[in-house]
């Protein structure tokens, strides 16, 4: 049938109405057909420090697996434990935790046992293949994803690298009222413990604890304020605080990348190390997807994203991640000291200059917290 014939053919009103109905129905049904073709993304609940579920880190994984992360951000390990304790089992599919809290998560039965064969431990530096606290004997409960050092964070225009190479700089007369505290007792008191020469800064006897309190109290006249995450950022950025105790490159790195004249120095007395790791929440209905996420973020590709995280950069434990980082963002690899062919952060660990941040061993957490509250109110 020619076009002309078709167009000029005689059509009944019924034929025209039928055709219009088919066309209209198809048009109306299009959104539903599209929705079936592109299924709604699966929601994955993540409990983490701020930044871990932001687009710069998760966008690629979300697109690959048709997932949408639903983050719940916390501000400290105690806050994290409280949030889990107050939520029904299975609320969080993925839990990011600092190393000192993994054992407590496990003891409370909040996290699932993992299969070590699922994760790229062979690509990790030997120091991170069986990280203390993440394992219970041969059973794995958490996979390390990133870590960082805490030292003397300082304004490079106000003091020199040499001056910042000892915790004693906190008592420098010219810094009176210009020394800030990140408002958390563990890193601050850990640094004073290191200054006192304690080889295990958190495993100290009563005499050692008394000494830590005594020395900390002498620092009080120097202190210009106690700051949370946001306050620490702004007070270092606007130069209100020239030195900050209790933090490291996880804050100064983000500021330095933005052009601020701040840096962190690991002092001669040693630095502290924090470690972040991922676990799968007990009772998660999406454990397979959570496992895929941990595999992704601990792979070389995921590790590069983690090292460059916009919220706060960190060091990564995957050696292949270091190699990829050196190719993709060499300047950041150099800035953070993660280049394999030159002096790097692993040398600091191997030289014994870095101690793990942990919960107090011989005192209760309450003792440390009570002292910190008293110290602040002095």
């Amino acid at each position, binding site marked *: 049938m020619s076009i002309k014939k078709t167009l000029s053919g005689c059509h009944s009103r019924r034929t025209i109405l039928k055709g219009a109905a088919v066309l209209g129905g198809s048009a109306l049904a299009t959104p539903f057909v599209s929705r079936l073709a592109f299924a709604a993304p699966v929601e994955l609940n993540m409990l983490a420090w701020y930044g871990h579920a932001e687009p710069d880190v998760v966008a690629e994984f979300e697109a690959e697996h048709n997932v949408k992360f639903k983050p719940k951000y916390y501000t400290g390990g105690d806050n994290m434990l409280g949030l889990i304790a107050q939520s029904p089992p299975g609320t969080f599919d993925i839990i990011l935790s600092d190393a000192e809290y993994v054992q407590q998560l496990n003891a409370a039965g909040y996290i699932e046992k993992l299969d070590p064969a699922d994760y790229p431990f062979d690509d990790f530096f030997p120091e991170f293949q069986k990280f203390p606290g993440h394992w219970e004997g041969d059973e794995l409960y958490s996979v390390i994803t990133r870590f960082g050092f805490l030292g003397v964070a300082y304004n490079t225009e106000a003091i020199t690298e040499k001056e910042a190479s000892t915790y004693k700089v906190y008592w420098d007369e010219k810094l009176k009222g210009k020394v800030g505290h990140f408002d958390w007792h563990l890193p601050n008191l850990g640094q004073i413990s290191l200054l006192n020469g304690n080889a295990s800064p958190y495993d100290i006897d009563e005499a050692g604890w008394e000494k830590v309190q005594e020395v900390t109290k002498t620092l009080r006249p120097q202190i210009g*304020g106690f700051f949370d995450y946001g306050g620490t950022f702004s007070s270092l950025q606007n130069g209100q605080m020239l030195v900050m105790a209790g933090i490291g490159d996880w804050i100064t790195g983000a500021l330095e990348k933005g052009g601020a004249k701040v840096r962190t120095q690991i002092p001669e007395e040693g630095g502290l190390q924090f470690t972040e790791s991922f676990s799968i929440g007990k009772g998660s209905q999406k454990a397979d997807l959570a496992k895929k996420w941990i595999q992704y973020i601990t792979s070389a590709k995921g590790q590069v994203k983690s090292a460059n995280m916009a919220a706060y950069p960190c060091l990564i434990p995957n050696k292949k991640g270091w190699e990829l980082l050196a190719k993709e963002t060499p300047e950041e690899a150099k800035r953070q000291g993660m280049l394999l062919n030159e002096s790097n952060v692993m040398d600091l660990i191997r030289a014994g200059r870095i101690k793990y941040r942990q919960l107090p061993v011989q005192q209760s957490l309450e003792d440390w917290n009570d002292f910190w509250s008293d110290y602040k109110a002095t």
Partner: protein
Amino acid sequence: MRKSITLYGMTFSLPMAIWQVMFFLAPLVFLIALSFWSVKNFRMEPDFNPDNWTRVLGRAVFWQAYLRTVILSAVAAMVASVLAFPCSYGIAFKLSPTARRWAIFMMVIPFFTSYLVRVYSWQIFLSDNGIINAALARVGLGPFPMLNSDFGVMVGYLTLCFPLVVLLQLFSLIFVDRTLIEAAHNLQCGRLRTVFEVVMPSAKVGLVIAALFCFILTFGDFVSPLYLGGGDPPTLSILITDTTKSGQQWPRAAVIALTMIATLLCVAFAAVSYAYRERGR
């Protein structure tokens, strides 16, 4: 004569009663119960343990923070009232009705922006390298430490309360009987004396309520003491967050919160009874 309660009257008064029960009484009862609970392994367990009360009230740090919070709030209420009065007086008595409406609108505008954002922006002005010190440096003055100090806290408190205090004072001054003022002037009473002897007593309820609101809002404020005062030393609201941050001690935080509520109730009752007390009694 005793009025009977009608269904019509109940219909209009019930929402208020329900609101009070749902959002004040019930949470208050829960808070009281919570203050006796125990925390084991970061998990709260229902209990009847008075230890939280003895521990919190037995610590010097609590009373130091309590005293500091009361003093800061009282000073804020006084400063805000004194600074706001000329402003509200001028708007009430000196401006035309149109200009007065504009002035009221201007006082409402600050509430369009988040209080947190306003406090953060103050840091740019108050820091040692900030706008104010930079301006003072041009004339050879300073730098003056303003951030992370009581002065900074007070700036934050006034940011929070000043427009509200002006509005509350204003609504009270607008309704002062003008014939009383005219009578005072006719009796040769000076302008300043008229303000103190006629205007202020006539607007006493509004002036006291404005100061009371300032006290209440600043007493529980967390933002200014932290971001403009550097949390140094802590106020009660900071102490609450400190208590919950370490060890998830919500029951002990409840003790602090209940003490704050009790204090505010006492202050509010005292202020209201003073405001409504008739002269000479």
